[in-house]
């Protein structure tokens, strides 16, 4: 293998690529009209669309309103899934009886992708926020259970034996051994499921919503407004990135003993 690129080299090539791409974009859309405006927007149009949604609003809300609304729904569904799925997974990891009892339901439900729950959630709860929270809950619940289950199973047996020998009581045992032991894998699961949550929410909002980033995309698609589609996509990506970063921050906080 060749030597790995150094940080500086990487950064330079990366910046050059992005600059070249921006130039190409300008050339293909604005200077030569090689790509027709109906298919892909020019940089100027994108700038204008971004200003429009930021200051005047688009699809019944300004950018920050859409952003906050979507993030809030993800947070609600995610928190509900983690607070129910985490303990359930730990219980399944701890007790083989609980595992055998709950596992069949998982086997039945797991192969169905979260997105496929959207129509059912709409039939049950309508086009409002409740249906979206339910679907996000589904998207995050299965990974939360599986990873906290795997997390408990990954605890080294001698830790458990040591705690037992010392006669640690149940609650303290859960708090001091089970939860911290399972946390690393739990967070891995959370990171994976956060992505799934975003995808699911955007899909849910594309299908029907009043505000939200997915709704912006939907409206822009209806209006044949490529610049706004692009703004919507970038917003979805940025929002997803921010959430992942926030989770990373929380991860560092939750497991201070791992900090180097």
């Amino acid at each position: 293998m060749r030597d790995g690129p150094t940080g500086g080299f990487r950064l330079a090539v990366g910046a050059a690529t992005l600059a070249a791409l921006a130039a190409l974009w300008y050339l293909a859309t604005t200077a030569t009209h090689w790509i027709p405006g109906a298919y892909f927007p020019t940089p100027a149009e994108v700038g204008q669309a971004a200003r429009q949604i930021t200051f005047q609003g688009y699809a019944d809300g300004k950018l920050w309103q859409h952003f906050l609304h979507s993030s809030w729904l993800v947070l609600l569904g995610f928190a509900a899934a983690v607070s129910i799925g985490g303990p359930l997974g730990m219980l399944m990891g701890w007790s083989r009886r609980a595992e055998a009892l709950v596992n069949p339901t998982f086997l039945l439900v797991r192969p169905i992708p979260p997105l496929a729950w959207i129509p059912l959630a709409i039939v049950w709860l309508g086009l409002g926020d409740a249906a979206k929270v339910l679907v996000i809950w589904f998207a995050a619940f299965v990974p939360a259970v599986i990873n906290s289950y795997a997390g408990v199973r990954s605890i080294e047996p001698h830790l458990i034996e040591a705690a037992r020998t010392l006669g640690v009581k149940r609650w303290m045992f859960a708090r001091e051994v089970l939860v911290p032991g399972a946390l690393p894998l739990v967070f891995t699961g959370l990171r994976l499921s956060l992505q799934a949550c975003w995808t699911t929410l955007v899909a849910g909002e594309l299908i029907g919503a009043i505000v939200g980033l997915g709704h912006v995309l939907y409206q822009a698609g209806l209006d044949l407004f490529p610049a706004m589609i692009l703004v919507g996509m970038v917003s979805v990506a940025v929002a997803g990135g921010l959430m992942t970063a926030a989770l990373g921050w929380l991860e560092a906080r939750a497991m201070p003993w791992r900090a180097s």
Partner: protein
Amino acid sequence: MGAALSRREFIALTAAGFAGFFGLWALVAASGLVQELFLPTPAAVARKFVELTQQPFVGYTLQQHLASSFGRFGMGFALAVAIGVPLGLAMGWFRWLDGVVSPLFDALRFVAPIAWVPFAALWFGTGIGGPVLVIFAGAFPPCVINAYRGAKYVDRRLVEAAQTLGASNWLILSEVLLPASVPSIVAGVRVSAGLGWQSLIGAELIVASSGIGYLIVKGQSNISTAIVMSGMIAIGIVGFAIDAALRRLEARIHRRRGRG
């Protein structure tokens, strides 16, 4: 950890788990607490499932919807593997390519596959092209990432030996890097099949005029929970079958390597 269960206890608990799931469902459905419209009994869903395989709904029978979904999935998935794997391998070998593509790739990865739906519809329509692009967007990243990692972690001695013998870049890629990274690639392909299948459902929920996702959306707008659930079951079965097939392939490759 709880003590291992005896075989009898395990089977009894698993059976109780299955019975509990269906029993609770049937009980709630039959009790009249929830309208039949919103929660049909398991038996009613099973009847509907069979009916859908015989009588066309929104133009096609269940099998025909599945066939058209599967066709789209096959195209998007094949495209993702055919482009993603070579790209990932090449990025693992050519440093400049890694530098050029990685920043773009990292930026695009944050865009949820489903957010491509408006552009997909705008560029390629809602027939085959649009959904295929969305599937591709879902299935592409794992192919690239795993091929890249596979190529990066190939035993240096193998590469150096090939270089000493004067192998060209092409030969190194095809005869050294590709075979050595097969396990990593297959693992990536499995992940990407799952994500591609999910993205397909998302795409079909929003833009399509046939397919299993379309079927459940139509079931939703007819407020027929039984149709929605039948569709979800079909999606789950196919998704499970795809994963099982790839898992067998994976196991087979590992076995061969173990022997060779």
